[in-house]
């Protein structure tokens, strides 16, 4: 393809205007200046192309070259993704470090996203033979990328025809062809990797309704505001309310096959903390380091702002790619607000009509493009398979005020809303998910799963009612003190406290409680409910709440979260239930 070359006409921060790029496409990648900085065409007005540059532009001069590449900004998808740390343009940061020998990220570095020198053990699929007709998504082989991930090599979307040749099992680099597909007189070499434009959703056969919860290991999410596989959730909250910790916990413990963590305009120290813990921590279900099923994108707040948008879309694209293999993928973005701010900055430079608080009018549709890529699907190709991509996005509203444009636009596209509360966080109630403001629209989809385990629907409703009542009573308590309340209300407060402290609170710092299996949550909930039932009976017989509060089993319930699911089911759970019964029997003199 002959490349079109233009010249820089104007430079204004990350925005460069180029002339002479006739025939350039929207969203085409261009190389700007002598250092060949990466940019993307984001508007074309007359013969001027407006280029958003993904690297620092200072030092550029008018008249320098701008070369069109003929390609939209694309991700390289293939073996080698897992365990990588990429910047927003999918440049591998570890490689950059070893190649440049610098502790800093310098601009203009050109490193391929996937390593070309690694030979992967390839095993061809026994279901495909030469002469077979294949189409998009058909699995033709496997690479054991890590002990946790069998990477399926698929016929890329938009390719179909007859198999002319298939590589035997062996060691190949990603550039080596592993199949030749012929269609008419055209031949296409299938390699272990494919390119896909990050702004374009990857195709699937059919989008499906959610059916199953994505267990996150966080009780307040799983039990109270569950998310489904393929769902989308927002976690808004002021600084220090626990967004980052929540997202890290979700990527660590979720019952997903693949986790993609996008740090977009946030802290470098946090990224390194996450990276270190992913190397050390073991996936509880499979006993291998979490890094062996994770991909990181680290575009910290001091890196070029324009690349915040690409880091988010890159993350989604990688997520969809693994979804297409039939995996359940969870992707988190911390924080979507930083991306929105980048949009605002570029839009301002383009002198577009500003919308609310200076954000561009397309803020909302851009957020929709992102969240709508979540979902559970039947994938393209054979064998028939189902995959899901679940998205969690953090939102960082100024002053913790949820009425600002990014939160308000996001709410329209997500099904779960986890409102983090400043008051809870200062009282060190973590996760600081406010139970009065948060919601999940997946309740009916996951009811089947939970009600098989326990009387979930009833318990969940009871919990929420008690917490609601507590909120109403707290105003009165503030005026008259708790002792002035009738006994029945005092009991409500006591049980609400148990729900909050013994069930909802879950410290990410506690190695045992950081992950809570569904069974564990169920056992704690059951004991609280049992205690509640017994306490109500005791109250009816004239026993005071003060005496109920003092029961030994009350503090046994509080200790339950510090046991593993196994320890609980192998004795502790039963013992606590028995102790509750005998405590109350004694109290009632039975």
């Amino acid at each position: 393809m002959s490349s079109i070359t233009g010249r820089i006409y104007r430079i204004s921060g990350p925005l460069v205007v180029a002339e002479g790029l006739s025939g350039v496409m929207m969203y085409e990648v261009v190389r700007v200046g002598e250092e060949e900085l990466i940019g993307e065409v984001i508007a074309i007005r007359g013969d001027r192309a407006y280029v958003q540059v993904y690297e620092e532009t200072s030092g550029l001069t008018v008249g320098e070259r701008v070369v069109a590449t003929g390609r939209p900004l694309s991700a390289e998808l293939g073996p080698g993704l897992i365990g990588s740390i990429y910047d927003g343009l999918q440049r591998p940061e570890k490689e950059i470090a070893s190649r440049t020998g610098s502790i800093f990220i310098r601009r203009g570095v050109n490193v391929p996203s996937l390593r070309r020198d690694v030979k992967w053990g390839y095993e061809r699929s026994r279901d495909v033979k030469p002469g077979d007709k294949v189409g998009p998504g058909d699995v033709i082989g496997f690479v054991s990328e890590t002990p946790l991930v069998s990477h399926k090599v698929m016929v890329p979307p938009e390719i179909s025809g007859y198999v002319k040749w298939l590589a035997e099992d062996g060691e190949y680099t990603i550039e080596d062809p592993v199949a030749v597909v012929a269609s008419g007189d055209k031949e296409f070499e299938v390699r272990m990797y494919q390119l896909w434009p990050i702004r374009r959703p990857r195709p699937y056969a059919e989008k499906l309704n959610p059916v199953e919860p994505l267990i996150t290991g966080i009780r307040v999410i799983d039990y109270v505001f569950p998310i489904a596989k393929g769902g989308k959730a927002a976690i808004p909250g002021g600084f220090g309310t626990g967004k980052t910790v929540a997202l890290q916990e979700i990527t660590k413990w979720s019952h997903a096959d693949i986790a993609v963590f996008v740090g977009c305009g946030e802290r470098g120290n946090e990224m390194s903390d996450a990276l270190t813990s992913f190397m050390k921590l073991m996936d509880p279900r499979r006993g291998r380091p979490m890094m062996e099923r994770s991909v990181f994108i680290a575009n910290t707040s001091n890196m070029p702002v324009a690349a915040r948008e690409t880091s988010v879309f890159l993350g989604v694209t990688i997520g969809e790619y693994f979804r297409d293999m039939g995996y359940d993928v969870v992707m988190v973005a911390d924080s979507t607000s930083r991306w929105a701010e980048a949009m605002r900055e570029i839009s301002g430079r383009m002198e577009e009509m500003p919308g609310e608080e200076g954000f561009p009018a397309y803020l909302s549709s851009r957020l929709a493009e992102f969240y709508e890529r979540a979902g559970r699907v039947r994938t393209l190709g054979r064998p028939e398979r189902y995959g899901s991509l679940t998205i969690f996005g953090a939102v960082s509203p100024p002053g913790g005020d949820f009425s600002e444009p990014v939160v308000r636009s996001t709410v329209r596209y997500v099904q779960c809303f986890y409102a983090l509360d400043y008051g809870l966080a200062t009282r060190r109630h973590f996760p600081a998910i406010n139970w009065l403001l948060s919601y999940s629209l997946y309740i009916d989809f996951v009811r089947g799963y939970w009600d098989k385990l326990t009387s979930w629907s009833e318990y969940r409703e009871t919990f929420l009612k008690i917490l609601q009542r507590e909120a109403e009573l707290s105003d009165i308590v503030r005026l008259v003190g708790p002792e002035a309340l009738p006994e029945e209300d005092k009991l409500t407060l006591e049980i609400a406290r148990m729900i909050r402290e013994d069930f909802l609170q879950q410290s990410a710092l506690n190695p045992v409680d950081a992950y809570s299996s569904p069974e564990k949550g169920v056992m704690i909930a059951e004991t609280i409910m049992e205690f509640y039932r017994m306490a109500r009976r005791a109250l009816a017989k004239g026993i005071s709440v003060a005496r109920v509060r003092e029961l030994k089993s009350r503090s046994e319930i509080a200790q339950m979260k510090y046991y593993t699911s196994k320890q609980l089911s192998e004795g502790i759970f039963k013992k606590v239930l028995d102790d509750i019964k005998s405590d109350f029997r004694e109290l009632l003199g039975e």
Partner: protein
Amino acid sequence: MSRERLFVKSTKQIFGVRGSLLFVRAIGGIRYGELVEVSLDGTSILGQVIDVSREAAVVQVFGSTTGVTPGKSIVRFYGETIKIAVSSDMLGRIFDGLARPIDGGPQVIPEEYLDIHGSALNPALRVPPSEPIETGISVIDGLLTLVRGQKLPIFSGSGLPHNRIAMQVVRQASVRGSEEKFVVVFGAVGVTYEEAAYFLRELRSMGALDRTVAFVAPASASTVEKLALPRVALTAAEFLAWNYDMHVLTILTDMTNYAESLREISAAREEVPGRRGYPGYMYTDLATIYERAGRVATRRGSMTIMPILTMPDDDITHPIPDLTGYITEGQIVLSRDMWRKGIYPPVDVFLSLSRLMKEGIGEGKTRGDHRELFAQLISSYAEAQYLRELSAIVGLESLTSRDKKYLEFGDLFERRFINQGERERRTFEQTLDTGWEVLSVLPEEELKQISPQTLKKYHVKYRLEVRTRSG
């Protein structure tokens, strides 16, 4: 900034002036972001190219454009962004916001010229901060431990003693280990004449000056100097940390003044203002300053940053503290109530948080009991606080004797543990021991956060027994 300038090109073709913006007819080769100097009668002001096209360049001058005459004033282009000379000889010296000496000493002989904007640390090379810095101040060391590589700000209010705390940290801070080289870089931006005089006096009288580099840009300094100061200070700090393996603590005060300068410039550029008139990119701008903190795998040194800012109207949701809090790893919040009670340093423990503390304390770092003691002090103080409020509703009489013990603890905690002399330096051990001392007014069974082993080893009661037995 002391290097002789070889100007690459110059022009007299100014065709417009608006606020602090100059519109210059373009000449070939103007670089985006490069520094310019505009000469007026006898003097000159600095500026920067903020937009350049084939027809025109827009120059933002840092200061007043009074006296700029189209067709007459000369605009000279530097061909590069702001660079400063750095050297390890900067230790013990005092500079202005553009790294020019103001202590009467000679120019430093440069080892390198560095762009004050620096570059982003490669995230893949970062190492999570995990070693403490001892500030000698109990409430920080005990409850809000500062960790090497962290950025931990102080949120203050006007009239609160943040400058004194800053100077106390400069005087006292240190790291353990004789092999480790520890230095402080101090930057004061936009401070009043009185404040600047106070800092200079303190710094000069301090025995610690030989391990300190100071930068001062008073309120009267030009906007460019005020905007440059934090970056200049951090450039010097990075040079010492990454080239000389030093642990550098950079204290920057008062970053509210920096943010005001940023707003001023933004208004001059007629940008669409963000919240309360601050530019929409203020988060990113502050992040490029604070994210220079950290540790990396291939270097021994570390970069720690403690910015100090005053919250306008004591409002923590104001954009300056708000955006800072979104970037930094926690915050130390000063409280007017505590200050009125006569507590120094007047820290509000509940609003404050050091996010990286948990990695930096414990056996081999501070002391084995630190974690548990910390948890216990916080939860007991919270209970004391709750009971203070409750007693205001129901009256002191209706409190139990247990409750009254808590009230006593609350007072003791504030007066003995948080409160401390401005010239008093407490080691980690002294801080933790003071913690145990104030805890000892509570009945032992109230110390639920502390394991029996830790209690036996550290609780004042048992320690006294051990001492009497062995003595």
